């Protein structure tokens, strides 16, 4: 399903151009609206569909194996933290789905390390990554080492 754009819905805002991982949503110079310049490099990833404020983009199954007459529409709502899908079959049957996309308001869950205390020299020289070992396990244990796991690196054939 490479994407296509409905002429009457697109206002040329360029959100789709900004997001497409394949760099194939471009603005047509004459109509000043977006279109897919290279359908054979479209992954139908729906990044552009989700980003379009006017729901002007849809996907039509790849011509080499998908018959016409279906649709998969989506509304991704950042405020509500959900994504809704409507799958319409060629014969008209419809299925609806709704999933969460995040559990915290955008931009609040991630620390900026520049505001956190610096790691110690001992931590620096250890195998630990940030917030470890606390973030690996609930007890007081450390990260696994060959010794803690009773292991040894041996050359040869093992199965």
């Amino acid at each position, binding site marked *: *399903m490479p994407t296509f754009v409905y002429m009457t819905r697109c206002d040329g805002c360029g959100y789709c151009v*900004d997001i*497409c*991982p*394949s*760099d*194939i949503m471009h603005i047509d110079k004459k109509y000043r609206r977006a279109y897919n*310049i290279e359908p*054979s*490099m*479209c*992954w*139908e*990833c729906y*990044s552009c569909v989700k980003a379009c404020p006017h729901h002007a983009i849809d*996907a039509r*199954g*790849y*011509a*080499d*194996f*998908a*018959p*016409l007459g*279906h649709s*998969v529409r*989506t509304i*991704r709502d950042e405020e509500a933290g959900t*994504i809704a*899908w409507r*799958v319409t*079959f060629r*014969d008209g049957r419809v299925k609806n*789905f709704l999933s969460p996309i*995040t*559990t915290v308001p*955008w931009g609040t*869950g*991630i620390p*900026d*390390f520049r505001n*956190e205390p610096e*790691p110690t020299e001992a931590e*620096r020289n250890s*195998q630990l*990554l*940030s917030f470890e*070992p606390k*973030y*690996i*396990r609930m007890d007081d244990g450390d*990260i*696994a080492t*060959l010794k803690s796991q009773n*292991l040894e*690196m041996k*050359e040869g*054939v*093992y*199965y």
Partner: protein
Amino acid sequence: MGIKTIVEDNIDILVAGAGLGGTGTAYEARHWGRDKKIVIAEKANINRSGAVAQGLYAINCYMGTRWGENNPEDHVRYARIDLMGMVREDLLFDMARHVDSAVHKFEEWGLPLMRNEKTGAYQREGRWQIMIHGESYKPIVAEAATKNADKTYNRVMITHLLMDESGRNRVGGAIGFNVRTGNCHVFKSKTVVVGAGGASNIYKPRSVGEGAGRVWYAPWSSGSAYALMINAGAKMTQMENRIVLARFKDGYGPVGAYFLHLKTYTQNAYGEEYESKHFPALQKMVGKEYLDMEASHRTHRPIPTCLRNHAIIQEVAAGRGPIHMVTMHAFQDPHLEEVGWENFLGMTVGQAVLWAATDLDPKYQNPELTTSEPYVMGSHATGCGAWCSGPADVSPPEYQWGYNRMMSIEGLFGAGDAVGGTPHAFSSGSFTEGRISGKSACQYIDDGKAEGIVVSDSQIEKRKAEIFKPLETYQVGRNEIVAGTVSPSYLLPHPGLQRLQKIMDEYCGGVTVNYMTNDKLLNIGLQKLKIMEEDLEKVGAEDTHQLMRAWELKHRHRTSECVMQHTLFRKETRWPGYYYRGDAMKLDDKNWHCLTVSRRDPETGEYTLEKAPLYHLVGDMEDKALADMKKSEKKPAKKAAKAK
């Protein structure tokens, strides 16, 4: 053409490609390097770039040490048997011991992880996989990266690494261009972490024409990670180990949740179980050590992915295709039906579109499966990538020469698909590897290893001329012809890609030859790739978008060449179901129980290949069930021997 050159100087850590691996680097490096200059160069838009652009419905690598579920060595054993023994166990152990902390962070950052209501633990899909609502997986990790980086350059494609000219085998940054503005971007950096992902589309895809973008791995996975490293002269490992996926036909929708959670299973066109039929002959090819039905049945030991592919390939060749996934039972349960659909909508929307288009409701009809064209990557059930140094407290001397995850070039690190010998890292493991590289890069700089790097203007000018040459080639050649895409003096990227795919398909074991190759075919293929390299000097690009395609093609070409060299070197069939060497149809542990390591000389273009030893940190005997089974097997055998 007036090309602007934008120089970003004094960078400490440059992230070249920010998918799951690169975002992990940018995030973690800030913790260990508060005042370091961290810059991201990303080909697309970091919020939706890489293999996770559409999201994921599962995190495929999570130990669950917190809940007492698995230890790191359990995962090593699993990945090893799945890859027929060929893995870097030090790197895998290291990834596995850290991976849980990445997943716990994801949850804190807002990624919705499903919970098992009874136990309170994360909802398992399988032993290693947990289920998530991961539509926004990529935007979430991107936020962690951009918040901690000093600068993120979107739409900058890195074409080459820059090398230190002070006489050391050391990296000095990277160079590329903005695919929108056409500006040249120079990054002078003390370290570079390559996170530019795997390679799709180097083999002829099953889909044709408009559908050619419907590949399993993202079409924008252009093998850049490999080409950047190979061209710089970094050592590579296991590049022969391409992967073939058994997936839903045409849409290539993932099957993990179907097999593991929905408990669907496969059968041939006549409703028969077919796998076990093919296993006795297959066991003769690979040995009982790798395919032991009894052991797999009684213990957690998986049947290697490639061997299951082999059964599908054989069954179809025998005229009993197509293979079906039996979904009709599972889908009667409304909850499982929902999981089945959301699984696609969350990571491969195209499969849902295809079922809608063909009126296929898996509740009433069992969908077809197929085996895909091969892919080159290093984080799924395969381990192509760079030969990297392991962690000081785990790795034996042969695997340890510098900082953790540093390549054979100083200051050059990698993550995810870029790192070789570490299959089954998946999204979480790639992010973890990125974190490890981020910390290592900081240590490398703090230890004074990056002093005195020299990157001359002439090096930059030389690369710049190379980068923009396709635009010039096109402009000059264009006037020779009336119109159209056919010119005697240039090759456009798209037909170029088709040539590459045809060579790889026919000579290096693609779908049209049923994954078969041999030494003769490979030698012809290498010659064809050599000639193609000459033609790639004449690749033409009409605009900056095509310039990106031109460089993607060059990167895919270099990756392919390395894959072919490796495939020729390993004279055995190690992974039946991924590919076959017709001139050496057996697995040969006597000669090939080793890793393969290559280096391409950047001056001459010659490859040197060598074998590297395999170190194991754990035997099967640590798997209790398996050990018990083997013990009970051994006893009668011993008695019989004594009786003689």
